[in-house]
C-alpha cells in the first residue's frame, strides 16, 4: 500500500535531507527504547524498525532537550539517561535571571500593545467587513499619529518659543526684527483684527475663513515676527528654527512612510512573483491561537473565508485574461486608448475650472479690500474649495464608470482608478496654488519694489495659509455633511420603505479608494499648509480623529458588507505609495515658496531675507571657515556627481544579487523534485 514506497525512500535519503530536523526526530523515535509510548501518528508505525545510521546517541546532547519533539515522559527518560552533569551555581543563576528578564520584557510588550489606539475597533471591523476596509482604518490611525507628531514638532520649536518670549514667561525676551533698507511701502501690513463692535456672525465667518481675528493669532505665519528668542543668555535663532522644523517634519513623514511601506513592499514583491506560498500561508498559519472569545472566533472564520475567496476569485480572473484571443486583445486595447483620451479631457476640464474659480474669487476679495469693504461673502471665499470638491466628486464617478469597460482584474481596477483619482485630486491642489501664485506674482510696476504684489498681499504667506485652512475646514464639513445627509437618509429609506426601486438601489458599499483619497488629499493640504500655518497639524489631527468615529459609525449602520472581497495586503502598500506621491508633490510648492518666491517684508520671521531659504546661507557664513569649506564642498557638483554614481553602482549590485539568488532558488527547487525520482544521482 501507500506506505512502502515512502519507507523505501526514507531508508536511504540524500545527505542534505538528513540534516532536516524532522528526519532527525524520526530517527530518534525509531531508536527510542519504548516505541509503544507513541501510539499516534505514522511515526509509531515505523518505530519498531531501527533503520538508518544511528549517530543520534551523540546528537542528543548536541541540542538542548527541550527542542526535541517528544512527550514529557520520553524526555524525562532521556534526561535520566543522558545524565546531565551538575551545573555550577553561577550558571544556574544566569539561567534563572535570563528567564525572568525575558518574562518581564514579554509583559512590557503585552501591556504596550494595549495602548495602541483603537485596537479593538479596528479588529472588530476586520472581522465583520474584511481586511480591505480594515486597512483603511489602520491607515487613518497612522495619519492621526503622524499629524500629532508633526504638531508636537512645530509647536515645540516654533510656536512655544514665540509665545513664551512674547509674554515674557521664564524670563525670556525676544529681539524684534530690525528693519533694513527696504522700501517702506513693502512693510505696511495691518491685519484687521476686528476692532470695535462687530456682529457676532463676523466671528463665525472669521473662524470659517481664517480672516479677521484669526489672522493675528499664532495660527498663521504673520504672527511669528521675532528674530530671536533669548532665554537666559541662550539665543534661539528663530528664522533658522522655523525653516529647519519645516524640513524636519517633511523628513519625518518621509522616513515613517517609507519604513511602513518597506514590509509591505517585500510582501508585494514576493506576491507579484508567482503567488509564492500565499495559500499555504493562509491555510497553515491563518488561525490566531490567541482567540478566546467565541464571537472573535466567528469574526476570524469569516475573515479567513473572505480572504480565501478573494484569492481564488483573482486567480480565476487572471486565467480568464490569459486566455484571450488576439482579436479580443486588439479590441480591448483600442477601447482602452479611447477611454484614456476621455479621462485626459475630463482632467483638463477640471483644471481649467479651478483656475478660473480661484482667479474670480481672488478678484472679488481684492476688490473689497481695495474699496476697504469687508463685505466679501463666504461663498466667494469658499468658491475655489467648492469647485475643487465638486471636481473631486465628479471625476472619480466618471472614472469608475469608464473603468468597467476596460476589463481589468479587480485588484488592478482598484489601483488604476485610485491612480487616476489621486492625480485629479493632487493636481487640483497644484492648480489652485499655481493660480494663487499667479495672483501674488506680477510683472508690472506694482511688484518691482518687493518682488510680489505688496498692495493686495502684504503678507502673502498668511494668504496662502488661509486658503489651505479653508480647504481643510471645507473638506471636513463635506465629509460630515455627506455622512449625515446622504448615508443616513439612504439607510432609513432602505429599511423602512419597501418600494422596489428603493430596494434595488439598496445600501451603498464602502468605497475604499474614495475614502482613502479623501484622507490623502487632506493630508497633502496639511503638509503644504503647515509651513504657512504652523498650527494646522493640530486641526488635522482633530479632524481625522473625528472622521474615524464618523466613518466607523457610518460603516456599521449604513453600509452593506462588500460584495466582492478585496485583498488588503497589497492595498495597504499601495495606499502608502499614494501617500508618498502626495508627500513628494507637496515638496514642489513648498520648495518654490521657500526658495524662489521672495518672502514678504511686512510680516513673518524672514523679513530681512530675500527668500526664506536665504537664512541658511546666512547662518553658514557665521560658521568657522573650515566647516564652511566642508559644507560648500558637499553642496558643489564635484561631490554630488560621484556620489550619485556610487549610489547607482550599489543599486545595480543589489539587483544583480537578487537575480542570482532567485536563480539559485529555482535550481534547488528542481533538484528537490528530482531527488524523489532518482535519489542516488545526488550522492
Amino acid at each position, binding site marked *: 500500500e*501507500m506506505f512502502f514506497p*515512502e519507507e523505501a525512500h526514507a531508508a536511504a535519503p540524500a545527505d542534505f*535531507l538528513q540534516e*532536516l*530536523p*524532522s*528526519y532527525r*526526530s*524520526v530517527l530518534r523515535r525509531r531508536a527510542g527504547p519504548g516505541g509503544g*509510548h507513541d*501510539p*499516534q*501518528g*505514522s*511515526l509509531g*508505525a515505523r518505530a519498531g524498525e531501527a533503520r538508518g545510521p544511528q549517530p543520534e546517541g551523540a546528537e542528543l546532547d548536541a541540542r538542548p532537550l*527541550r*527542542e*526535541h*519533539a517528544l*512527550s*514529557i*515522559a520520553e524526555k524525562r527518560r532521556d534526561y535520566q539517561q543522558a545524565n546531565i552533569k551538575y551545573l555550577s551555581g553561577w550558571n544556574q543563576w544566569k539561567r534563572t535571571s535570563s528567564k525572568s528578564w*525575558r518574562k518581564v520584557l*514579554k509583559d512590557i510588550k503585552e501591556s504596550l500593545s494595549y495602548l495602541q489606539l483603537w485596537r479593538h475597533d479596528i479588529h472588530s471591523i476586520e472581522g465583520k467587513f474584511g481586511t480591505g476596509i480594515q486597512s483603511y482604518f489602520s491607515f487613518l490611525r497612522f495619519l492621526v499619529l503622524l499629524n500629532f507628531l508633526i504638531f508636537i514638532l512645530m509647536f515645540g520649536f516654533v510656536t512655544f518659543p514665540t509665545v513664551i518670549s512674547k509674554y515674557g514667561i521664564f524670563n525670556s525676551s525676544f529681539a524684534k526684527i530690525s528693519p533694513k533698507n527696504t522700501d517702506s511701502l513693502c512693510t505696511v501690513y495691518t491685519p484687521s483684527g476686528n476692532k470695535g463692535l462687530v456682529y457676532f456672525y463676523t466671528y463665525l465667518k472669521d473662524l470659517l475663513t481664517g480672516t479677521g481675528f484669526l489672522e493675528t493669532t499664532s495660527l498663521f505665519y504673520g504672527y511669528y515676527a521675532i528674530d530671536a528668542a533669548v532665554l537666559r543668555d541662550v539665543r534661539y535663532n528663530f528664522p533658522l528654527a522655523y525653516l529647519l522644523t519645516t524640513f524636519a517634519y517633511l523628513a519625518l513623514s518621509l522616513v515613517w512612510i517609507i519604513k511602513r511601506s518597506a514590509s509591505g513592499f517585500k510582501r508585494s514583491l514576493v506576491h507579484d512573483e508567482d*503567488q*509564492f*506560498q500565499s*495559500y*499555504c*500561508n493562509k*491555510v*497553515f*498559519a*491563518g*488561525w*490566531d*491561537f*490567541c*482567540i*478566546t*472569545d*467565541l464571537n*472573535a*472566533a*466567528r469574526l476570524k*472564520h*469569516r475573515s*479567513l*473565508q473572505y480572504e*480565501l*475567496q478573494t484569492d*481564488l476569485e483573482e*486567480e*480565476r480572473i487572471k486565467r480568464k485574461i490569459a486566455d484571450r484571443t488576439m482579436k479580443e486583445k486588439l479590441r480591448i486595447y483600442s477601447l482602452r486608448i479611447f477611454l484614456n483620451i476621455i479621462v485626459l479631457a475630463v482632467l483638463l476640464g477640471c483644471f481649467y475650472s479651478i483656475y478660473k474659480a480661484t482667479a474670480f474669487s481672488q478678484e472679488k476679495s481684492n476688490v473689497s479690500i481695495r474699496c476697504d469693504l469687508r463685505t466679501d461673502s463666504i461663498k466667494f471665499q469658499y468658491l475655489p474649495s467648492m469647485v475643487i470638491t465638486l471636481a473631486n466628486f465628479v471625476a472619480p464617478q466618471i472614472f469608475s464608470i469608464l473603468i468597467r469597460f476596460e476589463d481589468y482584474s479587480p485588484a488592478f481596477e482598484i489601483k488604476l482608478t485610485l491612480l487616476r483619482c489621486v492625480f485629479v485630486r493632487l493636481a487640483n491642489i497644484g492648480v489652485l496654488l499655481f493660480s494663487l501664485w499667479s495672483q501674488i506674482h506680477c510683472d508690472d510696476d506694482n511688484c518691482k519694489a518687493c518682488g510680489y504684489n505688496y498692495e493686495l498681499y502684504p503678507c502673502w504667506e498668511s494668504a496662502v495659509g488661509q486658503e489651505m485652512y479653508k480647504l481643510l475646514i471645507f473638506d471636513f464639513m463635506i465629509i460630515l455633511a455627506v455622512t449625515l445627509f446622504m448615508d443616513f437618509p439612504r439607510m432609513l429609506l432602505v429599511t423602512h420603505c419597501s418600494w422596489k426601486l428603493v430596494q434595488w438601489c439598496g445600501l451603498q458599499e464602502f468605497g475604499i479608494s474614495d475614502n482613502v483619497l479623501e484622507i490623502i488629499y487632506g493630508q497633502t493640504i496639511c503638509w503644504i499648509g503647515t509651513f504657512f500655518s504652523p498650527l494646522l497639524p493640530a486641526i488635522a489631527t482633530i479632524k481625522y480623529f473625528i472622521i474615524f468615529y464618523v466613518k466607523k459609525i457610518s460603516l456599521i449602520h449604513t453600509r452593506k458588507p462588500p460584495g466582492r472581497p478585496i485583498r488588503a495586503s497589497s492595498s495597504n502598500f499601495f495606499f502608502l505609495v499614494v501617500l508618498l506621491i502626495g508627500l513628494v508633490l507637496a515638496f514642489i510648492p513648498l520648495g518654490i515658496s521657500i526658495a524662489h518666491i521672495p518672502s514678504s517684508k511686512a510680516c513673518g520671521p524672514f523679513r530681512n531675507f530675500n527668500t526664506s531659504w536665504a537664512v541658511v546661507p546666512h547662518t553658514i557664513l557665521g560658521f568657522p571657515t573650515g566647516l564652511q569649506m566642508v559644507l560648500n564642498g558637499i553642496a558643489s557638483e564635484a561631490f554630488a556627481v560621484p556620489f550619485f554614481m556610487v549610489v547607482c553602482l550599489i543599486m545595480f549590485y543589489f539587483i544583480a544579487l537578487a537575480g542570482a539568488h532567485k536563480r539559485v532558488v529555482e535550481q534547488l*527547487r528542481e533538484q*528537490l*523534485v528530482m*531527488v*524523489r525520482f532518482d535519489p542516488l544521482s545526488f550522492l
Partner: protein
Amino acid sequence: AYKRFSELLPKEQRDNACSRRVPKSRILTLPELRANPFQHRICRVFSTSEEGDDSMSFEDFLDMLSVFSDSATPDIKSHYAFRIFDFDEDGTLSRKDLEKLVNCLTGQGEEVSLSNAEMEQLIQNILEESDIDKDGTINLSEFQHVVSRSPDFVRYRGLQQ
C-alpha cells in the same frame, strides 16, 4: 500551570492532581481551546492515554502549554502542527486532510464554507505550492519547509498563560 490544571479536576480529586487524568470534556472548557476549531485534534495529539479517550494528565497538559508557548522552537511547533492537521493520522496531509482543515478554518455551517469548485481550486493551489516531490500529499519535511517560510506561523501560535 499546575493551578489551572487542578482547577479542571472536580473538587474531590484535586489533592492528587499530578497523577490524575482530566477527561476531554473538561479540557475543552479552557478558554484558549473553547473557540479553537482544532480543539479535538489538539486533545487527541497531546493525550498519551492508552484508552484512547483523549484524557490528559498533568504532563500532557504541560506538553501542550510548552509547545504553544513563545519559547518553543519553530521545529517543535511545526512538528506538532503537522500532527494536529493530520486528521486521518496517516503521516501525510492528503487531499481529505486539507479539505477538513479548510472547513475547520472557515467555520462550520453551510453558508460559510467554500463551494466544491473553490475547494478543489484551493487544494490544488496548496499542493502546487508545497508538494515538492509531487506525490499528491504533503509529508512532514515539505510541511516544515513551507511553514518555515511563513512569517505568520511563529507569530500567531501563542497560547496565553
